[in-house]
C-alpha cells in the first residue's frame, strides 16, 4: 500500500480533531482543537490503515512548539522503506 500524501494526513487529523483546518506547516501545538489525544486517535487510525509502517507514539515523543505535521510526515516517510 502506498504512503498517503501529507494533504491526506492533514484531512484525517481534521476529521479526528474537529479542527477547521490543519495546515501541514503550522506548529501542531498551536492548531486550535488539536491536542495530544487527537494525535493519538489519528495515529491509531493510521496504524490500522498502514500496518506495514511501524509508526507508534514515538512519532510525537519530541513534539515541541515548532513541530509541524510536515515534520511528522518526514518521520513516517523514513519509517516506510524499513518494512519494504
Amino acid at each position, binding site marked *: 500500500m502506498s504512503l498517503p500524501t501529507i494533504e491526506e494526513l492533514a484531512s484525517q487529523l481534521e476529521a479526528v480533531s474537529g479542527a477547521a483546518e490543519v495546515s501541514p506547516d503550522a506548529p501542531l501545538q498551536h492548531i486550535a482543537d488539536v491536542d495530544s*489525544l487527537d494525535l*493519538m486517535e489519528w495515529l491509531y487510525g493510521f496504524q490500522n490503515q498502514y500496518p506495514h509502517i511501524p509508526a507508534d507514539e514515538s512519532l510525537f515523543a519530541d513534539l515541541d512548539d515548532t513541530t509541524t505535521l510536515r515534520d511528522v510526515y518526514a518521520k513516517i516517510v523514513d519509517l516506510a522503506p524499513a518494512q519494504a
Partner: protein
Amino acid sequence: MTGFDITGWGMSVPERIVTSAELAERFGVDEHWVVSRCGIRERRAVNPGQTTASLAVEAGRRALDKAGLTGADIAHLIVATATPEQPSPATSAFVHHELGISGSAHDVNSECAGFVYGLVSAMALIAIDPRPILLIGSDTHTLTANPADRDLSILVGDGAGAVVLQPGAENRVKAWNLGADGACTGSLKVLAGGSRMPTTQETLDAGLHYAQINGNEIYLNAVRYTVRTVRETLESAKVDAADIDHVVPHQANIRIINSILSHTGLRPEALITNLQKYGNTASASIPIALTEALEEGRIKAGDKVLLAGFGAGMTWGSILMEWGGVAA
C-alpha cells in the same frame, strides 16, 4: 455448565466532591480545558478514615441487602482493587471480616480491568462450586495521584461497586474475552513500595510512591486493546455490535470511550456512562455504572449487556451477557 444470575448490586462513593473547577484553579487552567479533555465534571475523594476496604464494605453490604443475603451466605468473596488497604494482607481479608463472610476471600489486581477479570473468575468459580459469590471493585486512586500531577489528578476518583452472583439454571454469559500485554508495564505505574523498589527515604523524596502515567501510550493501547476484546467477544457470541442494548465500559475518559464506540460499531445510544460525576474509579467504575443503570431501570430482562474494561499492565477484558429476570 452452571449459569448465574446477578441478584444484587450496590455502590459506595465518598461524600467529598472535587469539582473540575476546583482542580482547574489549582493547576492554573480553565475548567473547560479539564472537561473537554476527559469529560469529567466532578469526582469523589475519600476523607481521612475512608479506605478502599471501607468503601468496599459499604458497597458489598448494599449488594447483599439487595440480594436478600448476608455475609454468612457467601461462599466466595472477590475484591478487585489496585489500591489495596495495605500491602498485606489482601483487602478482601478486611472486607471478609466486616461483612461476616463465611467462605473464602481473595483479591484481583488487574487495575482498571479488575472487575471484568473478577467477574470471569467468579463465573468459573460458580461453575465448579454453585454457591453465592460477592464480587466487589473498589479503588482509591486519589491517594496514589501526586497532588502536583495535573494529568492524573483530573482523571481519578474514588468509589466501590459490588454485585452478588447466584447460581442459575441458564447460562446467560454469551461470550467473554480476557487479555494482557506485559510489555506495557510502563504505561501507568507506581514504582516504589514493592519488592523491585522497596520504600526508602529516597523513593519518598522522589515521589516514587505516586502513580505515573504515560497518557499517550495509555490512550493508544486502551483503544487498541478494548476494540480488539470487544470485537472478539462479539464474534464469539455471533452478535452484531448494533444489537447490543447496553455497553458499560470502564469509565476512564469520554474520548477513549467514544473512540472505542466508533471503532467497534457499538451504538452511542447503548452507552452507559457516569464518568462526568465520578471520574475514573478504576476497578469500581463498571459496577458503579452498572448499579446506577439498574437503579434507573435502564436494563431489563433479556437485554444484551456488554461490559468492557482495560487497565494498566496492560490488561483488558469484555463479557457479554443476557440480563436475567432480576429487576431493580
